[in-house]
């Protein structure tokens, strides 16, 4: 009788479901039926003349075991699998209840490992690999100029842009952008909006579609048609309440009417997500011959047939041409291309990858730890397995039972892991907020989660849990030896032992690598902190005042207005002193101007022409407020006004470079206030300031007095003995008392800015430190459990040896010998791996070599010490074994 599934599937399913869900009825029905049969048979026997009791007995014997028959019937209905599954689940739950801590630890470790890994992988993928919201974004490249002497990437000058655009064959299109800012005075507080000027073809070159309205077209570049603006999504939602009829409305930027022609979607964020509006900027023809001002940020689209390398080669050639044509300015200029994505994520790529590697190590350690614990338990279960095998339990039956056990663990861990992952992707981007500000990124945690990554890591870890749970059944044989020795053989099964040993070695090695990595980052961070900023950030509040150009422009208006503002601010209670600087340190603002030394030899003059220096405009007491030291000469004072001799103060670094052996005070340096360098007298030298933050070198700097130069915005620094954050509202009020339409922007305390400047380093250091600590903890647990298990296993043996005269050192060497060797092997492997891999951290390290000996030794000692601590308690337990009890106890 053949089984033909295609005919019967539906009926089978219905039949099974019926029996399953109305189990009682099924069971009762079956009992009744069997009962009827037996009675009928008894009647037949009685009719044949057999006495009733005898008939009963015979009937039962002939029928066979009632329960067995019923089992066969249940199997015929397909109930057996479900019954078995139910049994296995109940068994698993009983096992868990017997030792809840064990299960909780395993589930927790797996959940953290899987969840954490998924979160980090998802974030890294989103940041580094997510396609940009532009058409064919791989063909978009940023074009930079590089000064090969200073190795600094720079924006393009007008002249270079014009030349390279005209002469290249590699690009379909080039477009430029230029930062700007406006004061938006519509409703509410006057607000400074961060703007970018785009060439009219920028949006179309990117292939970016607007959410509402349209983007720029060529006509928007024409004079008379250029008062149009495209809004960013966040400005539209924030300031204008998401009003869908905004297109066509006129808003006032710097007092001028601009028509809103479109709104960009949330994902569009070029060049960064802080930009509020975009306005068109036709190419200023006056700059077509200018090779001194680096103001154009250029993006280009590669032709379909041209690769990045080919384009780079062509740009190198064009750059050399420019060098020949304009040796005064372009002699050391080269062109550098990079993918647009790289421009966005370049400086966060390495930290992200380090994080990913570290969390992956954590996953490996977590999985191996879990495997270790499960294998240990499996070995302990050998006796149970042997008994059940010899009682007739099939190998597959046992396997299924242990698989279910593994699955219960895995599924609990998996559920928890999803929670951890979800939380992780919500939290991680917050920690890297400043660095990620330039990227168009998803808004909701759910969108970040990469389900494929989750599936993959889940799959791996589940595999680990399930396999390690099932191993005892896989090796099940009714072993006479196991049964006879009471289940505690003197040796673990060789396979299990080898596997666990390998896992311990792996854990130790990986933990060492994480320790070394985090040690290096910690030392680097401490060295960073030790650096002096060059000024005293404690107690300083900084903010930026924007001067609307149609109201305050040119000297002496800007200078007198500035002085009025400072007077008002100084009058605020709590303020000790206040001063002004065009571009305050640590704010990311800076300005550069061309300069040269007129007294130097003429050929040096030629090559020096149009080198740039950091250029700052300050009020006289700026240095005092910031506690910047005077090294020679004097600060600015009342002598330095409009009309009197034009003076500058330089910083120590510039003094050392130009005049290493003499006092530069009194000498002349040609510095450009606008475009052309003019002679300026040096009246003082001040200490270096780490303008870009602790991690960067101080640049060469030149200061000019505010009474001699006007500037469109000014940073203000306020010193107070109170907590600077408390002064914010009173300072704002003071400014608005002077001019109610003046925006006060970027109010931060200097200390926050200083902390932010090393924010990335700190975050990475903390993460790696966290992982390293967890790894060491897990390795500790692993070593502890290995030794502890060994002691339990060999209590009997140790008892015998002690009875035969073994002393404490002997016992210790038995117990600890293997584990010590494994730990040492692990340390050696970890050391070699660390030496090989830490080079990748080099760019994140400050003043520390990746192979720093102190860190390596400290890490090894830490881990070794941890291993000793882990071994201490079980070893002590071993030495305390009383031979009498051990020998007696089976």
């Amino acid at each position, binding site marked *: 009788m053949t*089984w033909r599934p295609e005919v019967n599937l539906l009926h*089978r399913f219905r039949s099974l479901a019926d029996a399953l869900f109305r189990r009682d009825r099924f069971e009762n029905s079956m009992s009744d039926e069997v009962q009827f049969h037996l009675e009928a048979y008894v009647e037949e026997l009685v009719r044949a003349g057999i006495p009733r009791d005898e008939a009963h007995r015979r009937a039962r014997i002939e029928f066979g075991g009632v329960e067995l028959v019923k089992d066969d*019937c249940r199997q015929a209905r397909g109930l057996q699998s479900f019954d078995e599954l139910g049994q296995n689940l109940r068994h698993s739950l009983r096992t868990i209840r017997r030792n809840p801590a064990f299960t909780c630890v395993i589930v927790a470790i797996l959940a953290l490992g899987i969840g954490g890994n998924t979160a980090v992988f998802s974030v890294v993928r989103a940041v580094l690999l997510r396609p940009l919201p532009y058409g064919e974004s791989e063909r978009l490249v940023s074009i930079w100029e590089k000064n090969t002497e200073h190795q600094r990437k720079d924006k393009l000058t007008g002249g270079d842009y014009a030349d390279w655009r005209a002469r290249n064959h590699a690009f379909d299109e080039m477009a430029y952008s230029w930062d700007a800012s406006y004061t938006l005075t519509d409703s509410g507080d006057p607000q400074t909006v961060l703007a970018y000027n785009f060439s009219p073809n920028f949006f179309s070159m990117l292939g970016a579609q607007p959410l509402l309205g349209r983007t720029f077209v060529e006509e928007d570049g024409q004079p008379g048609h250029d008062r149009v603006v495209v809004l960013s999504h966040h400005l539209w939602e924030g300031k204008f309440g998401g009003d869908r009829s905004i297109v066509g409305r006129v808003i006032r930027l710097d007092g001028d009417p601009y028509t809103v022609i479109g709104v960009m979607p949330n994902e569009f964020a070029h060049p960064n997500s802080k930009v509020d509006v975009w306005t068109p900027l036709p190419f200023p023809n006056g700059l077509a011959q200018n090779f001194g001002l680096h103001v154009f940020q250029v993006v280009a689209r590669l032709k379909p047939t041209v690769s990045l390398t080919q384009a780079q080669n062509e740009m190198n050639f064009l750059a050399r041409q420019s060098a020949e044509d304009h040796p005064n300015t372009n002699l050391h200029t080269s062109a550098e291309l990079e993918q647009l994505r790289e421009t966005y994520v370049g400086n966060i790529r390495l930290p992200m990858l380090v994080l990913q590697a570290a969390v992956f190590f954590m996953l490996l350690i977590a999985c191996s730890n879990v495997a270790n614990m499960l294998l240990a338990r499996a070995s302990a279960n050998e006796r149970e397995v042997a008994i059940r095998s010899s009682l007739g339990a099939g190998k597959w039956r046992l396997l299924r039972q242990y698989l279910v056990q593994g699955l219960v663990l895995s599924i609990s861990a998996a559920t928890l892991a999803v929670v951890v992952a979800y939380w992780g992707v919500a939290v991680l981007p917050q920690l890297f907020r400043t660095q990620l500000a330039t990227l168009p990124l998803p808004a909701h945690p759910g969108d970040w989660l990469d389900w494929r990554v989750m599936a993959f890591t889940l799959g791996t870890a589940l595999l680990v849990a399930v396999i390690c749970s099932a191993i005892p059944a896989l090796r099940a044989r009714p072993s006479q030896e196991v049964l006879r020795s009471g289940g505690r053989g003197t040796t673990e099964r060789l396979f299990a032992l080898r596997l666990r040993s390998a896992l311990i070695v792996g854990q130790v090695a990986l933990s060492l690598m994480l320790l070394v990595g985090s040690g290096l980052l910690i030392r680097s961070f401490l060295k960073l902190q030790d650096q002096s900023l060059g000024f005293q950030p404690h107690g300083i509040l900084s903010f930026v005042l924007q001067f609307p150009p149609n109201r305050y422009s040119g000297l002496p208006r800007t200078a007198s207005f500035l002085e009025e503002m400072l007077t008002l601010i100084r009058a605020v209670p709590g303020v000790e002193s206040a001063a002004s600087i065009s571009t305050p340190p640590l704010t990311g603002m800076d300005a550069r101007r061309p300069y040269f030394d007129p007294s130097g030899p003429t050929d040096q003059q030629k090559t020096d022409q149009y080198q740039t220096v950091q250029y700052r405009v300050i009020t006289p007491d700026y240095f005092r407020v910031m506690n910047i030291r005077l090294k020679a000469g004097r600060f600015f004072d009342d002598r330095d006004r409009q009309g009197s001799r034009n003076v500058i103060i330089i910083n120590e670094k510039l003094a050392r470079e130009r005049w290493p052996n003499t006092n530069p005070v009194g000498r002349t340096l040609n510095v450009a206030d606008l475009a052309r360098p003019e002679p300026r007298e040096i009246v003082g030298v001040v200490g270096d300031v780490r303008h870009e933050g602790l991690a960067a070198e101080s640049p060469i700097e030149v200061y000019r007095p505010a009474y001699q130069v006007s500037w469109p915005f000014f940073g203000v620094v306020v010193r107070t003995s109170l907590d600077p954050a408390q002064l914010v509202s009173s300072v704002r009020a003071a400014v608005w008392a002077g001019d109610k339409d003046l925006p006060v922007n970027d109010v931060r305390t200097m200390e926050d800015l200083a902390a932010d400047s090393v924010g990335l380093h700190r975050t990475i250091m903390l993460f790696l430190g966290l992982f390293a600590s967890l790894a060491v903890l897990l390795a500790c647990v692993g070593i502890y459990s290995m030794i502890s298990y060994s002691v339990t296993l060999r209590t009997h043996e140790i008892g015998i040896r002690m009875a035969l005269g073994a002393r404490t050192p002997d016992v210790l060497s038995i117990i600890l010998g293997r584990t010590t060797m494994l730990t040492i092997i692990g340390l050696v492997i970890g050391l070699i791996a660390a030496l090989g891999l830490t080079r990748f951290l080099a760019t994140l390290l400050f003043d520390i070599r990746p192979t720093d000996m102190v860190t390596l030794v400290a890490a090894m000692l830490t881990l070794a010490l941890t291993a000793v601590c882990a071994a201490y308690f079980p070893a002590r337990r071993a030495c305390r074994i009383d031979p009498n009890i051990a020998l007696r106890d089976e």
Partner: protein
Amino acid sequence: MKSAELLPGTLDMLILKAVSLRPLHGYGVLLRIRQISQKALDIPQGSLYPALYRLEHQHLITSEWGESENGRKAKYYKLTAVGRKRLREETASWNRLVAAIAAALNTTPDDLEA
């Protein structure tokens, strides 16, 4: 008549046949098979009910509680349309098999030379 041993796979066929003649309860199936095989086939009681359940699971027979001859509650099985068809097919196939084997076993040396 000497009892024959039940070949594996034939139990299901016999049950279908028994039930095809008239709806029967389990014990009745036992009696019926004994009867129609001229008392040569005696089903081992332990394998009867699993077979009945299996056949019902495959929807070749259906069951229904009813009243037995002596007024007791009993579960009666009867053939479904699919079961009837299966019985026909298996019977034909069995007959073919039996004929072929019988022919093979009854071959005499003379037949070979033909």
